[in-house]
């Protein structure tokens, strides 16, 4: 191996240190998932478990937590949220980017304002509304508040603005309606933006604890983080090994998905000019 210049070594070391700091809790989680109860509560801190207890911890987690239900709920909720967000945001962003209408400026201001309002501000009125409609403990209450994502509109808007006008003019002359243009020209060419947005949306809603905690009180509709909380409160108590094993299971789908689609995600993010 050729000797590395000092500058590169320093840079590499700094980056590794940063990566290690960010990954440390995750590594610790994996390590804890493999430890026995006594291992966890010893005074000495070691990353490698003394007795490998992975199988037992995972078995306990799978037995005590309805893991399949949790994961299925997570998939349903994230999938529906993402589907509706894209369904609403793409035509909306197309109209704002490429059509001329009088309220365009006003809409832009509204989108910007929408970016500033967090879910916590609207949580109470939404809760009251869902309660009145008897929709608490349902997929509707988990999905509905997030179907219109101003962030998605904003992100697609930036992406569509960069699309050439001539492409849309050509589509109009070829006989497409505005909806036809969205479906046949815009969507097939917006995949980089859609994949980039998919990470933001799916990660945020898969890991969200706040909103499910407000509208869901039954195991049957619990999303993965909420299910874990029930598990901790009711069953695990201080059984951190099993808890960490359960946590690993629910983070696994995202990690695997990211590793598989890594290249496309990075492409998508750089193409929209948004740094995640």
């Amino acid at each position, binding site marked *: 191996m050729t000797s590395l210049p000092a500058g590169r070594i320093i840079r590499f070391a700094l980056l590794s240190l940063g990566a290690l700091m960010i990954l440390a809790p995750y590594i610790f989680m994996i390590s804890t998932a493999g430890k026995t109860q006594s291992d966890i509560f010893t005074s000495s801190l070691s990353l490698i478990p003394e007795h490998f207890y992975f199988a037992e911890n995972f078995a306990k987690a799978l037995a005590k937590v309805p893991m399949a239900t949790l994961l299925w709920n997570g998939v349903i909720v994230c999938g529906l949220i993402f589907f509706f967000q894209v369904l609403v945001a793409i035509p909306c962003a197309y109209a704002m980017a490429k059509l001329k209408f009088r309220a365009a400026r006003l809409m832009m201001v509204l989108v910007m304002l929408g970016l500033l309002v967090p879910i916590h501000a609207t949580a109470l009125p939404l809760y009251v509304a869902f309660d009145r409609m008897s929709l608490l403990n349902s997929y509707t209450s988990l999905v509905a508040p997030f179907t219109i994502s101003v962030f998605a509109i904003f992100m697609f808007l930036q992406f569509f603005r960069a699309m*050439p006008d*001539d*492409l849309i*003019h*050509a*589509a*109009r*002359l*070829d*006989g*497409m*309606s505005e909806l*036809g243009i969205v479906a*046949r*020209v815009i969507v*097939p*060419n917006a995949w980089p933006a859609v994949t980039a947005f998919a990470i933001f949306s799916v990660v945020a809603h898969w890991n969200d604890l706040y909103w499910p905690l407000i509208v869901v009180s039954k195991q049957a509709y619990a999303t993965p983080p909420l299910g874990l909380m029930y598990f901790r409160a009711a069953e695990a108590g201080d059984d951190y090994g099993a808890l960490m094993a359960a946590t690993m299971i629910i983070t696994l789908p995202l990690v695997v998905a990211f590793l598989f689609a890594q290249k496309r995600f990075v492409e998508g993010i750089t193409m929209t000019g948004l740094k995640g």
Partner: protein
Amino acid sequence: MSALSLCDLKKSFGGNAILNGVSLDVEAGEFIALVGPSGCGKSTLLRILAGLDHADSGEIFVGGRDMSAVAAADRNVAMVFQSYALYPHLTAGQNIAVPLAMKRLSRTQRLPLVGSFLPGQKEIRAGISRDVREMATVLKIDHLLDRKPGQMSGGQRQRVALARAMVRHPSIFLMDEPLSNLDANLRVHARGEIVELHRRAGVPTLYVTHDQAEALSMADRVAVMIGGNLLQLAAPEAIYNDPAHIEVARFVGQPRINILPALADAGRVDFQGIRLALLEKVANGPVSLGIRPEFVKLSPSGRSGLAGRIERLEFLGSEVIAHCRLDASGDTVIAKLAPHEARDLITGMPVGILLSPEQAMVFGPEGRRLRTASAAPARQEPAYV
């Protein structure tokens, strides 16, 4: 009845007038080139025609039918864009098929999956792919049909764009600088091909360009547009030899026409020995005298003609361009000479500048052409004074 007629089209953007009342008639099967410097409104005019933009006032008739309220999709107008505007996610063949699919298949037949079970859909699709193949063969791109635009060269994309526009047999064909993204050799070649295709299809064509060579070489008639006004619409020879306006004379012709200040006095124009009788009544005062560089000769001895000096010589192979300055007025005069005429010329030398009065044109103070009676009797060879 003309195939296309525009009546007094006006358009302005935020107080800036882009089109000042443009009227134009295109006859059936005619090829008209709309030429002008960038920003003169020619592309805006084309977009209004296609229905992609709206005029503030004025009327558009295609085949006698008023198009003002007709949407772009229903005008049966095809357009080739400067950037080609091919759908990047579709192959060349699919690109060409789009206008046919939109026209021949119903809304439900176009749906993915569901559409493929509907009766009649298969026959129509077969017809479309047959027409696409036929069009591709005419344009010699049948071997490219499975490639996406990203895998094709500029010239190939340009052909696919042409094929997509021609395949549905439009009633009008619009082209917005379709050759400006090609390299020089390919451009000259493509010019000939477009003219040939037009002759075969016979669809009236409006061709926008800023390249006067394209306009003059391709079109049946040339429309010169400057500053939102259509200044002249005539055959290429007339545009060059008999411009109606000083801006037309300036825009057309390479190198540019020489414009010299002269005085009109009692129905005559005088410029350093050139005398022209005006056929129209004009107030006494300054006018402009225009003379093409090929009607300027230089006399190296300096004994005849106006005294001047050569400032710069440009050798272009078949011709030599001499930039001269008149000693008396300081005006620049450009002469286009054959190489053998320029053999004895060197930069900086004093020369006699000879202008041909029969070829001189007079323009009024507001730029309009003023008719003149030829001062000298017509001869075979132009006389130089």
